[in-house]
């Protein structure tokens, strides 16, 4: 297990590259989502084919998640962007990178691109959105509902999840409840600083949005294309929020296509 100490905390990082030892054509950074997620959602899905396509693939566990350190506080969006910045500095990745984020991970990836436009070659948002003025209260509301149910009757809530969503999801939910109890994450995320529409529109690199056809977030696709100067969105029918793990081949294919086009355009 590779641990990188950013000076603030220890982050679990995994890196995959071309297996034949050839020099990678570009670097892609994969950022996972909140609470039940970890870098494993990439490690066993799109990371191996990305490495086989010649990319240097970097993935890491967000603070509090997976095998990374779990400080009690510091869970605003800016803290997460600071961690990503510190990680890439430690890894001495100085050139532009292709950023991919799933759910909240996409909000981090987009935030990084907004903060450092010169370091973002492209951004792929999977079931995700920029940190707009409506994003923070919406995510805050979802967090509050989930945590309220788990806090008041965790056993009943977990039993319901086991029956309706399976044993695996129930175990993940238990881990998520622990993370929410032990840290300031539920308070910090809704209190995050958000971007104005002008700041969102200032991200000029190619942006791809991938959404599940049955997800509420798919409704964002037209807005995203209108606001961003270089944006294409794809809706994958028959999927909800877990489109990354359920339709990894389709999602990965669209992202690789974006990265390859952006690489050609940058030459």
């Amino acid at each position, binding site marked *: 297990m590779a641990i990188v100490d950013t000076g603030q905390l220890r982050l679990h990082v995994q890196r995959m590259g071309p297996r034949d030892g050839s020099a990678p054509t570009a670097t892609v950074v994969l950022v996972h989502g909140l609470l039940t997620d970890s870098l494993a959602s990439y490690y066993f899905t799109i990371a191996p084919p990305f490495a086989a396509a010649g990319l240097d693939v970097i993935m890491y566990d967000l603070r509090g998640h997976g095998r990374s350190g779990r400080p009690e506080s510091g869970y605003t969006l800016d803290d997460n962007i600071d961690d990503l910045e510190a990680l890439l500095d430690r890894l001495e990745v100085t050139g532009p990178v292709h950023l991919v984020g799933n759910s909240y991970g996409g909000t981090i990836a987009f935030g990084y691109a907004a903060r450092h436009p010169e370091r973002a070659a492209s951004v792929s948002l999977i079931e995700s959105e920029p940190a707009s003025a409506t994003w923070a209260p919406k995510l805050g509301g979802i967090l509050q509902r989930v945590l309220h149910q788990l806090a008041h009757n965790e056993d009943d809530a977990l039993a319901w999840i086991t029956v309706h969503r399976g044993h695996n999801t129930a*175990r993940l939910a238990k881990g998520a409840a622990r993370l929410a109890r032990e840290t300031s994450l539920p308070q910090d995320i809704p209190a995050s600083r958000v971007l104005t529409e002008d700041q969102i529109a200032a991200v000029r690199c190619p942006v791809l949005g991938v959404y599940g056809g049955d997800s509420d977030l798919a409704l964002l696709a037209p807005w995203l294309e209108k606001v961003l100067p270089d944006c294409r969105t794809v809706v994958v029918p028959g999927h909800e929020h877990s489109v990354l793990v359920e339709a990894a081949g389709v999602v990965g294919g669209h992202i690789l296509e974006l990265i390859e086009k952006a690489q050609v355009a940058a030459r």
Partner: protein
Amino acid sequence: MNPQEQAVLADITDLLTKLLEDEYGLDDVEIDMATTFNRDLELESIDLVTLAGLLEEKYGRQVNFAEFLAGMEFDEIIELTVGRLVEYVVQSLKAAG
């Protein structure tokens, strides 16, 4: 089970025993070919990332657990048994000569 499968099962049992002890403090888990990673061992997907690293340390890069799982459907991963991993490792080692 042939001798090579037996040897690989013994190796993988050692790796999993170490992982379960390091991460969860468990030291009395029984493992055989029918044991499932998800329901029986209660391993989370991030534990499988750790296992991928342990397998690479043990056998070298010809055993690529990430690629093996990336080729599977989500439901297949949930049902994955130790026996299926043993077969994959044996095949990979044969292919590498």
